[in-house]
């Protein structure tokens, strides 16, 4: 596809998601209490969107991933939350 064709197909969808993300951050700012590691993970990933690097989706996924290599001794639950707590000091 040409860039125009990509924009024709996906611009409105991307615009919608961009505004949703902005509105989410505004909503977080309006709320009370301390934010946990998930907000820090999103803030850390945001600059990757404006990088010149071509693999932005992969980079964002990696920024949200557990980069360690050793199995853990036991599970403390079954679910995943979408960000790695260890990424936040």
């Amino acid at each position: 596809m040409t860039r125009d064709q990509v924009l024709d197909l996906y611009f409105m969808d991307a615009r919608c998601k961009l505004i949703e993300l902005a509105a989410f951050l505004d909503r977080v700012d309006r709320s009370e209490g301390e934010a946990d590691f998930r907000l820090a993970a999103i803030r850390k990933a945001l600059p990757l969107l404006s990088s010149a690097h071509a693999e932005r989706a992969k980079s964002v996924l990696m920024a949200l991933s557990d980069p360690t290599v050793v199995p853990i001794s036991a599970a403390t639950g079954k679910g995943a939350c979408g960000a790695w707590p260890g990424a936040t000091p």
Partner: protein
Amino acid sequence: MRYIEPHAHMVSRITDDYEAMRMAGCVAICEPAFWAGFDRSSVDGFYDYFCQLTDYEPKRAAKFGLPHFSWLCINPKESEDMGLARDVLGIIPEFLKRGNVLGIGEIGLNKNTRNEIAILEEHIDLAARHDQLILVHTPHLEDKFKGTNLILDVLRADSRINPGRVIIDHVEEHTVDMVLDAGFWAGITLYPESKATPARAIDMVERAGMKNLWLNCACDWGRSEPLAVPRTAIEMGRRGHSKEAVDALVYGNPMRFLSQNPRFQIS
């Protein structure tokens, strides 16, 4: 359009979903064993579940002209209890004789624990001893990258395993290359939030090539879309891919992998 749904948890879906999938062009459904959303309390619960997957569910699918196939295992979400997991591993061989069983799956990891890895190794051993295809679940979200690496290590450590007979599912942009580069098949799961969207799935196909990839909806009791595969096929068409390319991805590829088990016959 014709397509094969290679990964769907139909026991969690309503009958209308079978009808909608059939009307959208589905010609066969494959159902891996899965976590029920709660932990089963004994091996008897799995015995009943395997009966459901190999007897009742094929009959329900047949009402809509759909061949139904299954994969058997204890899901990694329940393999932290190694005693229960080994009890379940003990009853799987008798079910492997049933006519709609394609292999061992969906095995893998959930939180990347030592117990999960031990049970994964035992599932792989079971598959190797019974010459079964393998379908692997990779962990969710932040655990996927680490878990996929660990799974690849375990599979490569067993010299009996032919990567061409193993599909590693739920790949995303940060794991698809490592799976394909190691010679395994890769599955892209289409979920509204937590895995790949149709657009991202096609991005991955365009970048990685479609040689050993399949798409699946993995619909279950959570947020998921039984028609995600045909929806993605339509998206491919919108991008200008040919009908032949779409057919190769959503029909030809799963047919090629699954036909390695001669039980996978669809008219």
